[in-house]
């Protein structure tokens, strides 16, 4: 793990940390206990002109492809087979309109920014997901693929995890309420894989897997066990090198996760007051968003929430009206309100999007199909200037009429906002330098 940081080739040097210093820090780290994440954090900080604001990112992924025109990019003047049944309403930002399905979000449009000109060219679910999370075209055909499907390129969450490391007792990269299909670590390896909370926090029996001892039940026995194990640890400490030493470090982190009241509280969504849980909505997405807030509060760097169900090919409007959009409306507005109340919005970047938008024209089955040519992305917090609308699509919401915002633009923007140098390269198993983001431009209008 450390070897990688030592062998890291950085072509651009900045004033903060020279390569030589980083090397010495790295070499000293072997002995002095300076951790890799810490070194990387120092390096990343040095790479940015100004100190980044976003310490964490909550990524709400509306899997399946949310219809941009039925939510954030209404086209009231288009024929009804394009505009759909929902009406445009004015938000609390003069001149900004969304559909009437977003009553809560529309009243706080000054808290987030709408990017209407996102566009890419992968119309598949799993391949589009792959493209979005890694910045690279998938090497497999769309459809039935393993989870994670990004066998080679690391996902955004793994990039954040590797670059920034943990800043608290909880793991740096978490997926909920199941693994993100393209959320894997790729060639970065298992240590940058997400910690997956494979459970639905809206359920009354919600519990995080392997977080609590499932053993003897009585606390007396558990403390005996801990006593025996820490005794063994003491005795075997001398022999700890190589993988045992690494495992031992993860054991320490696991202990601190299990035993730290702070960490435990992070997962304990049941302790939230009812009114707060209500504010997010008693839905999977709502409670995931709430849990995500608790996790970033405890130091998680990247929470990826996968909210499926948005692939609305047939008869889409009833489900959009009753289930999908209201849940997202409540979850997102609840999250932003809550983060702001707690003073966390400035240091937490919130992104809500899917793998694509949906077809401009309503199909014969009264639904909308895949449409990656246009999608709306919602961003808030973490240094993003709120209350703006960036980009626009044409009269049918078919394609951007302003500069299209690419996946690389988005990934570059998210990493930069978090203080990660997107140009930084890591070496793949073939020894090829792979930059964190392969291209794109920072979306200047956001800041």
């Amino acid at each position, binding site marked *: 793990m450390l070897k990688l940081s030592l062998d890291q080739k950085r072509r651009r040097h900045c004033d903060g940390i020279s390569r030589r210093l980083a090397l010495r820090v790295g070499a000293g780290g072997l002995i002095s206990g300076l951790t890799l994440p810490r070194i990387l954090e120092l390096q990343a900080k040095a790479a940015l002109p100004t100190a980044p604001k976003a310490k964490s990112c909550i990524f709400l992924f509306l899997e399946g492809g949310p219809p941009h025109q039925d939510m954030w990019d209404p086209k009231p003047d288009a024929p009804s087979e394009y505009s759909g049944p929902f009406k445009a309403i004015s938000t609390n930002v003069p001149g900004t309109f969304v559909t009437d399905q977003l009553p809560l979000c529309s009243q706080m449009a000054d808290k987030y920014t709408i990017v209407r000109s996102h566009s890419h060219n992968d119309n598949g679910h799993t391949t589009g997901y792959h493209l979005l999370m890694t910045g690279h075209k998938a090497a497999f055909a769309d459809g039935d693929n393993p989870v994670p499907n990004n066998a080679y390129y690391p996902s955004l969450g793994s990039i954040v995890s590797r670059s920034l490391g943990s800043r608290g007792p909880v793991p740096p990269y978490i997926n909920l309420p199941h693994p993100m299909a393209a959320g894997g670590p790729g060639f970065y390896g298992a240590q940058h894989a997400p910690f997956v909370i494979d459970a639905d926090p809206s359920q009354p029996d919600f519990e995080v897997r*392997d977080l609590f001892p*499932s*053993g003897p039940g009585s606390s007396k026995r558990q403390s005996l066990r801990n006593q025996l194990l820490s005794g063994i640890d003491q*005795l*075997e400490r001398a022999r700890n090198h190589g993988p045992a030493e690494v495992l031992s470090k993860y054991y320490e982190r696991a202990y601190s996760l299990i035993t730290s009241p702070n960490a435990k509280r992070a997962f304990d969504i049941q302790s939230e007051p009812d009114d707060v849980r209500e504010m997010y909505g008693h839905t999977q997405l709502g409670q995931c968003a709430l849990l995500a807030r608790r996790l970033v509060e405890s130091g998680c760097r990247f929470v990826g929430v996968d909210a499926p169900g948005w692939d609305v090919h047939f008869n889409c409007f009833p489900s959009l009206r009753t289930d999908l959009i209201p849940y997202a409306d409540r979850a997102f507005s609840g999250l932003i309100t809550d983060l702001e109340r707690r003073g966390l919005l400035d240091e937490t970047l919130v992104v809500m999007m899917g793998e694509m938008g949906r077809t401009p024209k309503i199909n014969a089955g009264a639904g909308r199909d895949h449409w990656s040519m246009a999608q709306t992305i919602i961003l808030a917090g973490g240094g993003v200037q709120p209350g703006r609308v960036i980009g626009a699509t044409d009269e049918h919401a078919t394609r951007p009429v302003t500069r299209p915002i690419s996946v690389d633009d988005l990934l570059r923007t998210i990493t930069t906002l978090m203080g990660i140098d997107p140009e930084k390269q890591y070496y793949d198993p073939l020894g090829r330098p792979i930059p964190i983001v392969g291209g794109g431009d920072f979306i200047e209008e956001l800041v």
Partner: protein
Amino acid sequence: MHLLPKNPVNFALLLACCCGSGQLAFAEWQAGPSQIELPHPESSQQVLVGTQLSDERSLDLTRRVEFSFTEPGVASINDRGLIKPLADGNTELRIRYEGQEKTLPVRVTAWQETDSLSFYHDIIPVLSKAGCNSGGCHGKAEGQKGFKLSIFGSDPKADYEAIAREAVGRRVWPVAPEQSLVLLKGTARIPHGGGKRFGPDSELWQKLHRWIGSGAKLDKNADSPSSPRETVRLILEPEQVILDGGGSQQLQLTAIDRAGQRHCVTTMASFESNMESMARVDGRGLIESSDLHGEALILARYMNNVTVCRVTLPQPGITVERPVEHNFIDGHVWDKLERLGFQPSALAADTTFLRRVFLDTIGTLPTSEEARQFLADPAVDKRSQLINRLLERGEYAEYWAMQWLNLLRADQRKIGAQATVALQRWLRRQFRENRPFDQIAHGLVTAQGNPQMEGPVSFYSTLGEPDIAARSISQLLLGVRIECAQCHHHPSEKWSQADYWALAGFFTGMKNKTVPGFGNVLLSQGGKDLEHPRTGETLAARALGAESVAMSGTEDRRRVLADWMVRHDNPFLAKTVVNRLWAHYLGRGLVEPIDDMRETNPATNEPLLEALTQHMIELNFDLKAFTRTLLQSRTYQLSPTTNTSNASDMQNFSHALQKTISAEVLLDAICQATGVPEEFNGWPAGYRAIQIWDNRMPSYFFRVFGRPIRATVCECERSDQPSMSQALHLLNAPEISQKITHRHGRARRLARQYETPDKMLDELYLCTLSRFPKQKERDLMSAAFTQHQDDHRAVAEDILWALLNSKEFAVNH
């Protein structure tokens, strides 16, 4: 390293250099090159001054001597010994050191006849040196900000177009060269995403400037391979060097072109260290060592040519005592350790050896009965006997079949369940019957027929295109990662795109056909030669580094490749399988990554790899016999406990390296220790994890512990990095907890058979750690007996839980 040499005079010299005093007046010293020619305004020559301290050891004096010229104004020299021309003429470089003086003649002919610079031979190296065409900048597939160069300058014509023609000629402007975009951006005078790449007075700038000023032309026949200016060879001086902590060595790199001309390219080459923590190198070839000990390689690259310098950083003041040698392996290992000053660790205890050899050979933990028997066995050759017994066990074939299923990418969702089973059965048979590895390899390469019948045919099912098959086989069996050469010349190897596509030509005759009575079968008949993707030239199929062979239109072309592969003088196959086995048993390949063999990535112990390869060939690729030799070596049987001299050694096998236990083996070990077999989803009871061919079987344990997904033929796919989820799972998972408390499990059985605390502890330690507890551990565990009193079941459960969570259990040491 001869740290206590026989000759006391040498020893004094050594001390002098170790102290860095530089008082070596009595030593002879040398300077070179003997004749310095500077034929171009941008030419430079690195001078090296050094003294030989012993047969192996020299000291770089280049930055300690005093330089001057007899004739001023002809050339300049900096404090690192780099000479540059100032004006045409002759002079002598005067080198003074400790009262002695030497002179070297210098001739500058840079301005008398101005031969124009060649885009291919002079400008492409500038773009490489400045990093413009690197993978992170303009060299990436999509280019950068509309300016795309071929990676490492692999396509000069396209690069010329990009620089001289695109962007309406703004990038180069011969009328006012300094206004050219490449110079303005390169020096960051106008904003440049890549920052400042060279200074306005640098030789890179000068070369670009002169080339642009003289019309920015593309030389004719630029990339013709017979051009007299084509670099054919690099000479790096020194090729190896021994450095102390904080030492330094200047390199001198000379390119020899086809016409036999020598050019100093030290300032134009790129240098990389494979161990920056030990020795780092700067862009002008100065190596500086840290105070770590071991070996580092410095790679020098110039124009598709690569070469290396091996840097040895011995540990001073250590006299290595050579332990008894069990076989030839140990001799080579001790030789190396002696050079480096690492004292080998002691022989591992019987308990450590027992657990290690079980896990390594058969992927299975010894049972407590097996452990008792072995530990009590008084036979002096009991280790050899055990090795022989293990190699004959059924698990040997199961375990190795599992590993090869992973390497062969047997993904059941892609090749189908029946084909996966067919491949597994074939692999098991190969290992059970100990089929020679050259025959296994031959069988794999030439596989044909129905993939659902026992055999290796399905290996090809996921490989698709001929070049994918070629590169997978190359990496798997030849240890050559030729994938890079698909799109550009391999950056650290001699392999070119022509080599890549010529190798792919062997796999062009493969097709799937439906044959009545046999179903859908794979056939390989005939085939065609492929074209070079850039030049369009037809490339006759040929193996790596071999000549092409005439082939009939109907034969299986792959057979020609396979026959070449298994010849006893083939330089790849034996070495690759030797390195794979060594890496498996010793925890690290002699070459790392294990399937990346190349001249510029030599083994940490070349004589050993050579001897092992020879041994493999002499044994006619008998894997069991070879494994026996490995396991019987003292090197394999060393303790993981380090001593003061070898704790930092991670690559020379002075002590056993700890290894992670793979997901399947660990799960089996937990089942065996708890006495409760795993029930696999949809599988009948009684299967062990190492027998499960279904790589898609959902299992949280496999997911967390990183079972390979079989997407590539790279061993690197299996992540052997522990994670926090693993620790959490072992600590808390209900599945493991249920095994500990299972009514037919070990804990309850031990409670029923309870006699004394000591006997119970013996059994718990034997079934998990394959050893008896030490007194300190008995004392520690007594807490459980005190707390639970007569509840022996609780005692056994709690101790078992703690032992399963010990690092000693989770790691193979």
